[in-house]
């Protein structure tokens, strides 16, 4: 199965230093929270961006979902701070 595309916005993007990347696809039952904990272990910008999961929000295939959602067969996972539009 194809890799999982991650996209980042706002300070998450700045901490990681890029707006998207491909990662090896985890098993479908792995949650977003579990995946970002693994990514944080790489250290550097990922550790900084994912240090406080309570400050993060996510979307799977362009739909907001809780961090405890399984990634399933989504093709795009977005990680970002709470939105501040309007």
């Amino acid at each position, binding site marked *: 199965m194809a890799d999982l595309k991650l996209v980042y*916005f706002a300070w998450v993007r700045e901490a990681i230093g890029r707006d998207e990347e491909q990662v090896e696809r985890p098993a479908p039952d792995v949650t977003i929270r579990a995946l970002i904990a693994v990514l944080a272990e790489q250290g550097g910008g990922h550790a900084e961006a994912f240090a406080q999961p309570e400050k993060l929000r996510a*979307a799977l295939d*362009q739909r*907001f979902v809780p961090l405890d959602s399984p990634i399933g067969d989504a093709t795009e996972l977005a990680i970002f701070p709470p*939105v*501040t*539009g*309007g």
Partner: protein
Amino acid sequence: MTRISIQAEDFDPAAELMALEASGGGGVASFTGIVRGEGGLVALELEHYPAMTSAQVERIVEEALERWPLLGVRVIHRYGRLEPGERIVFVGTASRHRAAALEACAFLIDWLKSHAPFWKREHFADRTAWVEARAEDDAKAEGWLKPPR
């Protein structure tokens, strides 16, 4: 009539209101958001999630259409660099009666604030800062989760 625009360019609220007035209702309500120049703000920068933004705003508008009998809805949300005094967002609603137009307009702007993928960064003369989401805005959006009256 529903129209949604996610754009960098400015817009003309008068022209948008006139279009809504032509939708056959008895009332038009609108909200225009403006960049406040407080605390020495030089500019506001709005980032968004292009692959998601339009679809998500569409879902928010669908929610409003399910709750209120609207004849017209217009949403414009800008992105990019905006200076104090510039327009950021426009929400306009038309309905047969005022209550639906006013309530739907308030609902739409509250939900755009907390349910649309935009992020604001403030630029000052010597620093920049990402705007943090306010619990108060979330509470306003959550208030609309109660069944409509």
